[in-house]
């Protein structure tokens, strides 16, 4: 799994940029609920009034407000106002106002209480049980306003008494809560503003609009940040995909057969395509969403602490519930999910068997049996899918349920706390939002903890390919090849496949000379193909030496060595492009004429000419638009165009019918007059006239010589020959040879 992160290392600068943008995004994301709560708390509940000091105040209220202030406070208060006719106007700076809110809250609220009680003195204050806090003040406030002011001015209430009253109120504030107190202060400010003929409604509208505008600005910044994150994440994701794809491809192309065998072609293909694609997707998702989860989570926690709601436990509970639900569901469904893949494979297998065996099934009349077999696989799959899908149907309603319950719980607990004065209504709304954000962050992390290990496997698989280097390399100081003659010599060569216990080839010793044909025959698995694969160094030998013109082939550079060899593999392998582009594989500058000659020799002209575009006819991927025999002939032609010193035909004629085979070999004889020809064959008829035939059995050369010699003195050869040709035919061949 750590490989996923290792892949990101080269992009660390970009990732830092992404992180920065994510922080911006998170910041905005978290600020938005604050604005909503401001709109509700301040804009609507407090009529858009933020501070406890009114904008304008009548002189009467001005005095009233100062009623409970100490001398210092009075000074602070007076400094904030300027007399303007009958009224006073607040001139304090914004920052100072915040400070004043804090410093003057106590006396202002006391005045408010007094004022309030006087206005409502006729009302019964004790209808509500929780009115004690204010109720206490009432004895003081039960006298009328003028009398009260008189009390103060006449000095009947001493400063000590005043202080005592303040202390009493301070106790109440502690129980009612500072936020509620502030609301009271603001309510007083509003009342004062109204008395001073300030258009409170205009203030409120102004507040609403400015908050709305701020909110939109933040939203815009957030959108921009998110888009930026998306931009960089996509580039990094796609970039990593590109890099990995390139690294694996470059590496695999250099692989020798040893590494190809180790991984198997199919697995290498999956690694280079699907696995890389998966990493690319996961990386982008990771950078965009998973990385965001902890940031928003931490931010959410900070915000939650800031609200001072003290309801962290609700969020912890929510996270536990969600994580619990997901892990229960996953652990119930996981075994079945794993099973599902094998069941899908099984269904595919049976379907494929039915399709490939159609003629056999029909010939044996086994349709019913096949349908039963299919039905069994089908039923098993359906059963499991039904189970997993049903488990998953719990997921959505379950999760919604938890979310809703948490919301309700928050509302209930919060209302208790609001009542106790610890928080405001708007803060509750914000809290719900933060809670959801934190829970979502955890949900994302939970999901990722399921997703990441899978991608981790893919990353490991790719890493394995990237770090495996080819075992067959150029020598440090390659020997120059001067005018290659083409004498290939095997000297006591032993070879075993890497990791195998037994030698595939042992003590192989022969010389293939220019102008002569060396044929290799033997049963399947005897090592014929392996032997010829050693010549272009697709594998390196264990012991002994293979020489070209007397020099060990390992002394040459691979390129130079392979340039001398025209290798025709068992399967006709073509590449997408045109017939010409395929034939020019060996010689990019080959002329049209050269192509035609080669096609002629390879018996390919006929079908090439039938095509409207002839040599420019397109070849589909894997050469799927030409038949097996045609592919084989084109790959022979490709080797001929290369005009090499050494021809290696690895059982290249078996896909051809006998007649074409014969014609082709006849034409080829001409072309390869001066070249060294090595042919691996199955059919005796193919090699009847070779200059030298090697009979391979179980990795050893059990016979060497011409057809006639071997027929006489090699048992294995004799056996092979008799299984393919009748005595008469063998005799006939002999007769012809003599004639």
């Amino acid at each position: 799994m750590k490989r996923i992160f290792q892949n990101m290392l080269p992009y660390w600068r970009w990732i830092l940029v992404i992180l920065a943008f994510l922080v911006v995004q998170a910041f905005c994301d978290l600020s938005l609920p604050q604005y909503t709560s401001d709109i509700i708390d301040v804009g609507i509940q407090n009529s858009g009034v933020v501070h406890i000091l009114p904008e304008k105040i009548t002189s009467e209220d001005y005095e009233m407000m100062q009623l409970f202030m100490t001398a210092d406070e009075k000074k602070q208060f007076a400094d904030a106002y300027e007399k303007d006719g009958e009224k006073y106007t607040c001139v304090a700076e914004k920052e100072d106002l915040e400070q004043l809110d804090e410093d003057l809250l106590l006396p202002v609220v006391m005045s408010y209480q007094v004022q309030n009680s006087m206005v409502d003195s006729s009302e019964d204050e004790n209808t509500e049980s929780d009115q004690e806090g204010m109720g206490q003040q009432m004895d003081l406030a039960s006298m009328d306003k003028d009398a009260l002011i008189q009390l103060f001015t006449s000095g009947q209430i001493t400063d000590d008494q005043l202080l005592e009253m303040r202390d009493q109120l301070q106790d109440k504030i502690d129980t009612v809560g500072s936020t509620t107190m502030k609301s009271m202060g603001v309510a007083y400010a509003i009342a004062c503003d109204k008395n001073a003929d300030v258009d409170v409604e205009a203030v409120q509208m102004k507040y609403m609009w400015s908050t709305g505008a701020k909110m939109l600005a933040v939203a815009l910044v957030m959108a921009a940040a998110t888009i930026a994150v998306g931009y960089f994440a996509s580039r990094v994701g796609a970039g990593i995909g590109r890099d990995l794809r390139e690294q694996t491809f470059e590496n695999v192309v250099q692989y020798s057969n040893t590494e190809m065998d180790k991984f198997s072609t199919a697995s290498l293909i999956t690694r280079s395509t699907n696995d890389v694609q998966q990493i690319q997707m996961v990386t982008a998702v990771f950078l965009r969403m998973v990385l965001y989860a902890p940031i928003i989570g931490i931010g959410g926690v900070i915000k939650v602490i800031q609200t001072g709601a003290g309801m962290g436990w609700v969020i912890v509970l929510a996270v536990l519930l969600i994580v619990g639900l997901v892990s229960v569901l996953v652990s119930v469904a996981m075994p079945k999910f794993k099973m599902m893949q094998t069941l899908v494979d099984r269904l595919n297998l049976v379907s494929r068997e039915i399709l490939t065996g159609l003629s056999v099934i029909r010939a044996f009349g086994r349709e019913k049996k096949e349908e039963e077999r299919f039905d069994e696989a089908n039923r098993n799959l359906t059963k499991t899918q039904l189970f997993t899908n049903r488990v998953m149907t719990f997921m959505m309603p379950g999760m919604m349920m938890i979310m809703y319950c948490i919301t309700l719980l928050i509302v209930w607990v919060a209302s208790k706390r609001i009542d106790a004065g610890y928080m405001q209504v708007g803060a509750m709304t914000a809290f719900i939002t933060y809670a959801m954000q934190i829970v979502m962050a955890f949900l994302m992390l939970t999901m990722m903890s399921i997703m990441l290990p899978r991608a981790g496997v893919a990353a490991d698989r790719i890493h394995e390919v990237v770090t495996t280097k080819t075992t067959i390399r150029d020598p440090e100081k390659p020997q120059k090849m001067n005018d290659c003659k083409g004498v290939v010599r095997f000297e006591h060569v032993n070879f075993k496949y890497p990791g195998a216990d037994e030698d595939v080839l042992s003590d192989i010793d022969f010389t293939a000379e220019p102008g002569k044909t060396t044929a290799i025959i033997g049963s399947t698995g005897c090592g014929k193909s392996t032997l010829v694969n050693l010549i272009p160094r697709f594998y390196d030998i264990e012991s002994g030496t293979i020489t070209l013109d007397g020099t060990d082939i390992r002394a040459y550079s691979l390129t130079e060595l392979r340039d001398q060899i025209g290798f025709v593999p068992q399967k006709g392998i073509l590449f997408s492009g045109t017939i010409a582009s395929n034939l020019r594989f060996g010689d990019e500058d080959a002329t049209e004429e050269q192509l035609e000659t080669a096609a002629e020799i390879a018996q390919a002209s006929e079908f090439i000419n039938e095509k409207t575009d002839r040599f420019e006819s397109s070849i589909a991927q894997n050469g799927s638009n030409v038949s097996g025999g045609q592919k084989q002939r084109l790959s022979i032609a490709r080797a001929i165009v290369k005009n090499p010193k050494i021809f290696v035909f690895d059982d290249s004629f078996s896909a051809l019918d006998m007649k074409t085979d014969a014609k082709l070999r006849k034409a080829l004889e001409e072309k390869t007059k001066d070249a060294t020809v090595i042919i691996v064959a199955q059919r005796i008829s193919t090699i009847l006239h070779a200059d030298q035939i090697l009979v391979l059995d179980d990795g050893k050369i059990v016979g060497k010589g011409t057809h006639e010699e071997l027929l006489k003195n090699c048992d294995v050869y004799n056996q092979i020959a008799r299984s393919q040709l009748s005595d008469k035919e063998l005799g006939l061949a002999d007769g012809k040879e003599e004639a």
Partner: protein
Amino acid sequence: MAEQNKSFQRSGGGMKRGMGRGMMPGEKPKDFKGSMGKLIRYMGNYWAAIIVVMIFAAVSTVFSVLGPKVMGKATTALADGLMSKITGTGGIDFSYIGKILLITLSLYVASAVFSFVQGWIMTAITQKTCYRMRKEISQKINRMPMKYFESRTYGEVLSRITNDVDTLGQSLNQSITQIITSTATMIGVLVMMLSISPLMTLIALVILPISVALISFVIKHSQKYFRQQQEYLGHINGQVEEVYGGHLVIQAYNKQEETIREFKDTNKVLYDSAWKSQFLSGMMMPIMTFVGNLGYAGVAISGGILAIRNVITIGDIQAFIQYVKSFTQPIQQIAQVANQLQSMTAASERVFAFLEEEEEDFQAKEDIDVSKIRGEVEFDHVHFGYNPDQIIIKDFSAKVKPGQKIAIVGPTGAGKTTMVKLLMRFYDVNEGRILVDGHDIRNYDRHELREAFGMVLQDTWLFKGTIMENIRYGRLDATDEEVIEAAKAAHAHHFIQTLPGGYQMELNEDASNVSQGQKQLLTIARAILADNKIMILDEATSSVDTRTEVRIQKAMDNLMEGRTSFIIAHRLSTIRNADLILVMKDGDIVEQGTHEELLARNGFYADLYNSQFEEAV
């Protein structure tokens, strides 16, 4: 072939899974209405359940839509209580809030329960539909003429069973529910919003055209890159498969660097389209969030104004804000579902097209006892072409007596298997007739006719299962002893005994844990066990080692003993002993006769036969 199909499957499936389905430019069905109608009719017997699902989904949505509005009352009560507390006129009514919260809770519980039940039923409907579809496809395969499969790759048919049915299942499970919940949410939310404040609803609705416009803008622009990405992903995968597969040739011709260069070019284009499509599709979310916030701010401000004028309460604003948030979601979902429905319909279109393909008729026209077939075959002026206007076999007549051996020879691609296909009625002749025991083969029951033939093909078809099961496939009621007898006659007994587990050894996929030659022997044993009067042998042994080849030959001789045999001949010894040799070229039978007759004629056959001994100069 099989390998190709596998890789096709793999890369195809992988891609589908890898990409976000919603944003992909989904393929479009040719006839949306028609195919949709078919699908609806196909699911007809679940109509009651589907209606239940629809009702439940709608009810669940209604409940969850009601939630915020009811809960808003709690917030209002809270705020009011607080205000009166501040002004000293009252306090928070907790019993009222508690009651509201309990009502909300029960709404949400009900919503979850309905949603869950709905999902539970829908999953069953979907799975059963998929099951039935797959089953019908598998049965259909057996009723279709061979020619259907010859013009297609296995991968194509396979993808009906797997990819198409899968796509269908997945979309079906979600889309029906999604459409209902999305629509219900939209309507419900709209009603709720209107009930709170028509003015605010109007403001909220303004964001609707904006979001639709933005979504379609993003989709339009990203689709181009998605398509390009798909295309180049295909190219890259193709290049990888081709180069890895042809690795040997690349190396032998020193083409490494050029190949890498080409790959890098493709890779670069892929990179460009990959990040662009990713980026553009990723823009959807922030844009929608922004538009959402726009509506949010609009609602908050207008709500605030209304609240000041005491038209609505604070709780209403809160509820409204929640509604606005859940209003944009269904729009996005419906856009996605529309895409999903398209690909679902396209998939079902292909499945139905397959299910509606022409079938073979199996009815016998005469009452013939197949068990008494002697094995006399007559070709009576047969004309045939795979294409009616391209007759390849022109007027072929021949009579084969029971127990005779007929070899079919000819160069590659001469159409040697055509005769076999005609005999087994995989195809019907255009003119003339083929008689078995004097009856036109078209008058037989197709099943019975085919059962009269035994087959051993070059493509040794075995299935994953034990060796015993594989041989017994020839005659299902054969005892173990009979199976072993057949194996002995096929010279397979010896090697089977040396295998781990003997007859109980499990053959793996592709039966690659036994050799090619051994597979051939097993198919021969299977044919011997079946004991049919007429044998068809495709005796390609080129990839079999010599010793096994000798054994196969002996086994085949045993098999042909006393049976009429048609041999697609590769080996010369078989040809020489044949009672009749049919020489084929370009699809037609150009010569017929015994080995000696044909050699004497010095025609195409003689040419073919002698060519292999020619001295290459």
